């Protein structure tokens, strides 16, 4: 789901800190350096990188194409290879049977079973294409506000990791405590109360 979807999910963040130098140039360099590779890495199960909002399968950030008015709009892409368990089971069974026939034995040791499974997974990873998942984001640098168009835990964690690597800025997720602490303009006294506050229930 993304910015142009008919239904969307949004996780809100604040980007903590300032970029050095020109904002657009610094972001452009970060995006380019950590863009999703155009050529698939056959051996890895997942690849994470930035891509362009308008052309997610051909990343292109030239001419600051990620700038829309006062916002920067680009996407996180996670290309993941998912091997169906039944496929692993099938290839494992075939390979194990062949090993038993070759050696003339009736059973395999635990280590052999593990090594066959690793070999099967490794072989299949090279043969199966990765499925791309694209998650848009909107970043308003002036207000440090960032919206990420997914509530999935793994996608949000990948975003937080890649963002600091690319722009050297921490993303702070806005949930009840951080929204109260950073967005509500609390006085010192309120902040003290917030620190020690406990649950209250209407019937208490």
């Amino acid at each position, binding site marked *: 789901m993304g910015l142009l979807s008919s239904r969307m*999910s949004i996780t*809100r963040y604040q980007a903590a800190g300032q970029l050095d130098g020109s904002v657009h140039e610094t972001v452009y360099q970060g995006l380019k350096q950590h863009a999703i590779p155009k050529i698939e890495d056959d051996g890895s199960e997942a690849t994470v990188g930035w891509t362009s909002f308008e052309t997610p399968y051909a990343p292109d950030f030239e001419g600051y194409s990620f700038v829309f008015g006062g916002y920067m709009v680009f996407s996180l892409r996670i290309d993941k290879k998912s091997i169906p368990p039944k496929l692993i089971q099938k290839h494992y069974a075939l390979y194990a049977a062949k090993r038993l026939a070759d050696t003339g034995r009736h059973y395999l040791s635990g280590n052999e079973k593990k090594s066959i499974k690793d070999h099967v997974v490794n072989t299949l990873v090279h043969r199966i294409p990765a499925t791309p998942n694209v998650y848009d984001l909107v970043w308003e640098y002036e207000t440090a506000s960032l*919206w990420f168009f997914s509530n999935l835990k793994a996608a949000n964690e990948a975003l937080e990791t890649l963002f600091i690597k690319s722009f050297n800025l921490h993303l702070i997720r806005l949930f009840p405590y951080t929204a109260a602490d950073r967005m509500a303009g609390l006085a010192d006294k309120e902040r003290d*109360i917030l620190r020690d506050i406990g649950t209250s229930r209407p019937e208490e």
Partner: protein
Amino acid sequence: MLDIAVAYSRYKFLGNEFLTWLWFMIETDQGRLRKYDTDLVSLTVGNRLVLENTRSNAKETVTIKGDNASMEEGLLAISKGAAVTEIHLAYKTGAQTWEFSLKGESLNISNLKLPETGPVETPDDIEGVVLEKIYLIEKVIGIVNNLFTHFIHLRLSNTWDNQTVSRIRKWASSK
């Protein structure tokens, strides 16, 4: 600043209390909500409400679904000490309507449906549509921030314990 993971778990009750208060406000004081957001024509509970009672170390969940579902079970759950953990809302301003779900523990927005925007027919249309969508999303994020800010100031004041908790209790048990 607390460790983020600790803060998330420690304060998720605050998000659930926010949604419980919001449901109470929607049902009892639309006028005040309109003061908080001057564009607001109405804010109503949509087709889903989830409540959770974690008292006595046993988790009990009540889910109310459907466009014309009765909320009595939800009120009963509130009167027994449950809190709203997820709410589906319809936000109207003038001729436009937004629909979205809000989760208490994360304040995440999901299933957001914006008012109709212009179609993307050529690549030149994209920038206009993107900016229009951003404007519409800002409206919904604005009202969530605005309501949460009012809630948190109330929650951290004496008024919460002295008045609001008993008003919510009275509302829940009066239906």
